[in-house]
């Protein structure tokens, strides 16, 4: 159900040694199985300013994601304003 999906900002503890090219695969490996059967859910992966990624999840999937010990936090994104 696409309407139940929100974008979550997920912060993770990266492995000590990981190539930039392998980041997406690493982040993907953290996602609950239910997210892997549908369309690509990862919206952005970050490599410079945060260790983490943005992903579309249901609230239940977000809870499941946070069970990973590598996941530091996962919270729904907010919309900020122009000033």
């Amino acid at each position, binding site marked *: 159900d696409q309407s139940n999906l929100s974008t979550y900002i997920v912060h993770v*503890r990266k492995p000590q040694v990981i190539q930039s090219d392998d980041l997406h695969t690493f982040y993907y490996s953290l996602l609950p199985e239910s997210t892997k059967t549908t369309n690509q859910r990862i919206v952005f992966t970050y490599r410079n300013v945060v260790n983490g990624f943005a992903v579309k999840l249901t609230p239940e999937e977000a809870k499941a994601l946070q069970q990973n010990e590598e996941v530091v936090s996962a919270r729904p994104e907010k919309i*900020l304003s122009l*000033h």
Partner: protein
Amino acid sequence: TTHTPSFLGLQQGLGLWKGSNSGKGVIIGILDTGISPFHPSFSDEGMPSPPAKWNGICEFTGKRTCNNKIIGARNFVKTKNLTLPFDDVGHGTHTASTAAGRPVQGANVYGNANGTAVGMAPDAHIAMYKVCGLVGCSESAILAGMDTAVDDGVDVLSLSLGGPSGPFFEDPIALGAFGAIQKGIFVSCSAANSGPAYSSLSNEAPWILTVGASSIDRTIMATAKLGNGKEYVGQSVFQPKDFAPSLLPLVYAGANGNNNFSVFCAPESLNRSDVEGKVVLCEDGGFVPRVFKGKAVKDAGGAAMILMNSVLEDFNPIADVHVLPAVHISYEAGLALKEYINSTSTPTATILFEGTVIGNLLAPQVTSFSSRGPSKASPGILKPDIIGPGLNILAAWPVSLDNSTTPPFNIISGTSMSCPHLSGIAALLKNSHPDWSPAAIKSAIMTTASQVNLGGTPILDQRLVPADVFATGAGHVNPVKANDPGLVYDIEPNDYIPYLCGLNYTDREVGVILQQRVRCSEVNHIAEAELNYPSFSILLGNTTQLYTRTVANVGPANSTYTAEIGVPVGVGMSLSPAQLTFTEVGQKLTYSVSFIPFSEDRDNHTFAQGSLKWVSGKYSVRSPISFIF
């Protein structure tokens, strides 16, 4: 930008523009609504190629790709239809041209504010990261934009956007900015438009330059003239030549409207029979944009609008591009109009349009909307840091508002407009001082800021009373002085670790910001006010507080600075040493300052302000101090 460069002391071929090569070779990354690459403000005539370190890409295709001015353009707004970084809002085109637009002669809106529009760093390169659309800016896109900008090799980041105050580990702009300063990138952000309420800031992290908004000495003048002969001066950009200044019936929208929103001239809130052919007095506020109020009046057949400020906005009218003859007046003038309407059975009024007037000695003046400190996220850091031009700013726009054949410009207001002024100035300083860290550039901008207006009296706020330190921060930017500050307060990225631990963040939370494991138990915690910041925010209880600061000499090798302190009633200050003698460029010296409470003298004030200045010849290195009791 037809006037702000000269207002800030920037002149073509002279002074700072000459000394900084107008920002040549510096890359300003702007996170915004995209950009209109066709605008002449982004012409690359005379622009050199991007520096070799540039690693970014351009997503524009077809007839217009990027050039040597716009060297990068990316879109991070994920929608079905919009895949290119074109600006369908206008905001990004405006901010980009304010920071680094090329000179465009004959820029004006409806003939007003006419002149050569030029950004603060006209020879700097622009990289646009589109992270906002009409509905706002998603955190995931903002992080993606900042992440990419760091990779691309920008030197300055400019963000005229933000959200409410929050802890830094949950604030995408604070997180992105920390990653940026780790790479030596300077980050300038808007302070937000939630003033004049206190503690209403966005973007409060100490590694960000938080920019509030002030006026310039130019008004786009219009006057409300009443049937009793009295006149009240205000502003408006739309000044139609065919509007005859003859008296028309005047009506207060709140008196005749058909619902509670009519007082604010909300859309569809006015009865045609009440306002047709009349001048309508509307009140600002009610969550109705000012220009929409004029549209509501026009749609109901009104001939003109007089828009009065709310009590909080007070003496701070704004020049807008209204859709009908209009004038925005002060709250006090609005009260006089209401009194006049109630005093006669046949009130009449008209609007006299007087065009662009330069020379307001009360400028710069803090705008009513500019957000105020104290910082909620870190009360021990004084915010905003600085104020700069953000009221009635003309800059590039994607489409023409007045159907003229000249390049399109718009006049808009907000801390969104002040932020790119500081981004451009930071780019100038980057060029003239390539070895300065982001914190050193920030220190230079803050410690040289001005506290007085063109008339030589203290900077006022929207009430026409002296603005306090939570409105002005260090004061109004003075780019020329910032280029030669004498001393700087520097901070390395790792210096923030004891500060963050001192905020009582957990290891996990500090680790999110640092992107590395941190054990606060193994780090010296420091109080917020101990950070080597160019200003002080002191939460003063009953005990004396002592802090140390380290300054680096970036002026003449041999120089002696003497301290001058300004102490408010109820507080004592002592300094050691009271004199700093440098013998080398780059030399660092440390001093300590004590803040001593005398609680019996505070007169029930909740806060006070003071300053600490290090003075040597032409140099005056000033730190503002706020005291919260």
